[in-house]
């Protein structure tokens, strides 16, 4: 009998000790990080017996002089394919500047410069015809594939044919489906013909090239390039580095190319380490095992900076914001402009950014903020400020009064000011929902919040996805235009989903005036005229509160101090990878 009591006592003691053992007060950063002092020896000594290094750098300790410069990048997601037409992953697409080539690339101001072409076609140099229907490109003479074969216009035509061919299940045919034809009058010239002027052409064409001499035989043998080996092992490329090997689950390696027409890069090799999660990435960076990382968890940033790493942000065009629903099935409250204005003034964006995002970004005011440098944001836009008193005043004047004292306003007919808000299940979004619910509650708006897995949330009208069918008054996610072009088709009336058009993705509503402006800018080739139209669109969507920006969803890079010459672009991040060097 007594022994049974001993049981229970033992159990209680064990539980108590478990809890206590785990309750060691946590220090913000384990003291071990102080020991990860700036390494005095060189890391990255992978193959000390290789070919002579490119430049003799001064090494303070005794290491073999002929040592290769290998930069290690920590990747938290492993690419599913290296063929950018088959992959939807950012982690795969941004590798293009390392081993592949675009017709023109973008610098750290997100402005284009010619790469494969001699100059970017424009109306001034005659590359773009007066009516905007024909674009002619001239290729450089010295461009070659990594195996020495010259790059010719035939490769461009072949790429177009493959993307448009029905046997290839490419992710997207944009914007090649706007083309009427692509012709190659000679080896160095490509002529693109459109049925209608297509203003965004510069931002989307020729972002990656297929080597015809490698893939055409595959296509002829298999009838498709979906399963081509080249997609997973592109041994023939056209960038400063060449693909070397890829061990699934472990690493991917690129070595410098001997046939790059712009010369040789400073680095000998880029080694992509696949790390299982963010914590492992942080650990690798702090230990000096990796030289570059992406999107660190914000709570790790102070520790990383203390360890001597630099955090660099670059605008990739994305902003996190609220899309407002003004379709027929939306609640009457959200269709009232006054309510939307009140919402815009009732959210403390600064607090969200300071507290939840550690102040590492800034509020986004319009959907086109990322392109402000191009002049698309008119100066007369008045940013929304956090002013709950003003929000309450606006609501009172619009007739939304709390008559029954429950904290939620009603209109003259007794309808409650209840608004539904939906997003995906990412932690930061759910946190923002909780904060928003509270802040809107303070001005008398009842916010009902839901969240779904992203492949349910972004499903189509045919699948009954909540945004598509119009169940949500406010939808939150991070999106951009066809960056670096200001074009977007989200608000086109023709994109409203319905039974006849089950895949349309205008989940927001049809505003005839706005629709006309969007359609007009698409075919306006003259950039000054187009800028004016975009400015109108920007001001209109801002003042009508069709889109309310929370924060700029920038690209975050963490770079070790050993990497020099590092610059990033928002469009083509590794555009100057040739100039990177290791100390």
């Amino acid at each position: 009998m007594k022994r049974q009591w001993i049981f229970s006592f033992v159990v209680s003691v064990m539980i108590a000790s478990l809890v206590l053992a785990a309750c060691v007060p946590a220090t913000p950063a384990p003291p071990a990080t102080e020991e990860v002092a700036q390494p005095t020896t060189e890391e990255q000594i992978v193959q000390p017996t290789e070919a002579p290094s490119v430049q003799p750098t001064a090494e303070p300790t005794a290491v073999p002089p002929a040592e290769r410069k290998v930069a290690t990048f920590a990747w938290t997601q492993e690419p599913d394919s290296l063929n950018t037409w088959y992959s939807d992953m950012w982690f795969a697409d941004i590798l293009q500047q390392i081993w592949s080539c675009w017709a023109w690339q973008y610098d750290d101001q997100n402005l284009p410069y010619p790469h494969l072409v001699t100059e970017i076609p424009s109306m001034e140099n005659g590359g773009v015809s007066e009516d905007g229907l024909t674009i002619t490109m001239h290729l450089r003479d010295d461009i070659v594939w990594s195996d020495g074969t010259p790059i010719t216009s035939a490769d461009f035509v072949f790429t177009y044919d493959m993307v448009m061919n029905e046997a290839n299940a490419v992710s997207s045919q944009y914007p090649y489906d706007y083309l009427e034809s692509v012709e190659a009058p000679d080896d160095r010239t490509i002529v693109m013909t459109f049925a209608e002027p297509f203003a965004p052409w510069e931002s989307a064409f020729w972002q990656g090239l297929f080597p015809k001499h490698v893939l055409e035989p595959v296509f002829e043998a298999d009838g498709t390039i979906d399963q081509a080996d080249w997609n997973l092992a592109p041994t023939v490329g056209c960038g400063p580095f060449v693909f070397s090997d890829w061990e699934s689950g472990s690493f991917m390696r690129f070595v410098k190319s001997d046939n790059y027409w712009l010369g040789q890069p400073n680095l000998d090799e880029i080694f992509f380490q696949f790390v299982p999660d963010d914590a492992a990435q942080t650990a690798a960076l702090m230990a000096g095992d990796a030289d570059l990382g992406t999107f660190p968890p914000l709570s790790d940033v102070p520790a990383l900076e203390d360890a001597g790493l630099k955090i660099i942000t670059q605008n990739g065009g994305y902003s996190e914001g609220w899309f407002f629903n003004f379709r027929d099935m939306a609640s009457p409250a959200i269709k009232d402009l006054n309510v939307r204005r009140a919402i815009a003034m009732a959210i403390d964006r600064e607090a969200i950014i300071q507290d939840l995002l550690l102040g590492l970004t800034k509020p986004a005011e319009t959907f086109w903020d990322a392109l402000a440098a191009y002049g698309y944001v008119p100066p007369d836009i008045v940013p929304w400020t956090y002013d709950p008193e003003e929000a309450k005043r606006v609501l009172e004047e619009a007739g939304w009064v709390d008559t029954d004292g429950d904290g939620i306003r009603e209109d003259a007919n007794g309808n409650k000011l209840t608004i539904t808000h939906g997003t995906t299940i990412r932690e930061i979004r759910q946190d923002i929902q909780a904060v928003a619910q509270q802040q809107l509650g303070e001005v008398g708006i009842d916010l009902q919040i839901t969240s779904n897995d992203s492949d349910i949330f972004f499903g189509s009208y045919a699948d009954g996805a909540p945004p598509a069918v119009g169940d949500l008054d406010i939808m939150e996610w991070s999106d951009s235009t066809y960056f670096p072009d200001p074009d977007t088709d989200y608000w086109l009336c023709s994109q409203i989903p319905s039974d006849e058009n089950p895949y349309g993705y205008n989940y927001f509503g049809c505003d005839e005036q706005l629709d006309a402006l969007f359609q007009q800018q698409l075919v306006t080739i003259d950039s000054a005229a187009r800028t004016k139209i975009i400015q109108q669109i920007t001001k209109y969507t801002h003042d009508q509160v069709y889109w309310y920006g929370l924060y700029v969803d920038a690209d975050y890079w963490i770079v070790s101090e050993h990497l020099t010459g590092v610059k990033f672009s928002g469009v083509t991040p590794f555009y100057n990878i040739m100039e990177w060097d290791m100390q």
Partner: protein
Amino acid sequence: MTKYIIRRLLQAIPLLFIISLVLFVLMRNTGDPLATMGGRRATRPEDRARLARQLGLDQPIYKQYIYWLIGNDWTKIDLNGDGIAETQGTRQGVLRGEFGFSLLSRGKPALDIIMERLPNTLLLMIPAEVIVLLVSLAVGVYSALRQYTWWDHFITAGSFIGYSMPIFFVALLSMYIFSVDFKRWGLPYLPTVGMFDPQIGKTPSQVALHMVLPIFSMTVITAAGYSRFVRSQMLEVISEDYIRTAHAKGLPYRMVITGHALKNAALPLVTIVGLDVPLLLGGAVVTESIFAWPGMGRLFIDHLSRSDTPVVMGILMIISVAVVLSQLLTDIIYGWLDPRIRYN
């Protein structure tokens, strides 16, 4: 005996069909694999319609199931959307061993993806099962032989706590103590996540080191449960007459225990271990997620959340087949070990 086996196998076939049908219907109705194919942007309607056609997702569900099962190389499909089926299909179907191509990593056969991960899961599970067996036998027998002593109480209390813990709690706690705290206290510490340290590479010692915490977390819970079972079985067996007879005959204690009691007590454990096979292959989903172990469980979660039907169905069907076979095997072994059981 052979007739029994054949009968069981034949009974299993309709079972597998039902399972596959139910799961397929569930899978096709959960989420849209095309939703996230635009990358960071919404998928354009034109692309969505085209991809649905190319990946066979625009067919009515019964056709999709049939194509999944027996392929479509015996019929023509409409690839260019003009309503006329003109291209010969290329898929062979599950019954011929082809699980289709992953919707996520387009171009990679689903079977290849699964087979890449399967060894990693087995690497974790088989040692775990062996350790569980040994530990639970040892602990259970010890506890039974020392019934009502202080040790027995301690072990029983510990077992209860062990199998009442949610696995992620054990995992988090062990990660916290053995990795974080040990590092802080300057003791040799264990790595937290992944299968090996990226900088050092995939060496056997690295993998072994990374296996310790996941296996520990899993065995704690399972062994706690099984040791209770072994203990109660052992207690029953010890009180049987034939044990008393063996003692009376003068057999050494050790021989009585190992030669007679243990064998009989361990038999039911066989059944239970046999039932664990689905876990073996499915991988402990939660454990693999926490420890970022690249196994089948994590593969399942990742591809389920992106609605990659071919891979998910492939995993589920492999597990189902394995379960059916293992149940049969368990029954046969049990029958062979226990002469009292006869199958007709």
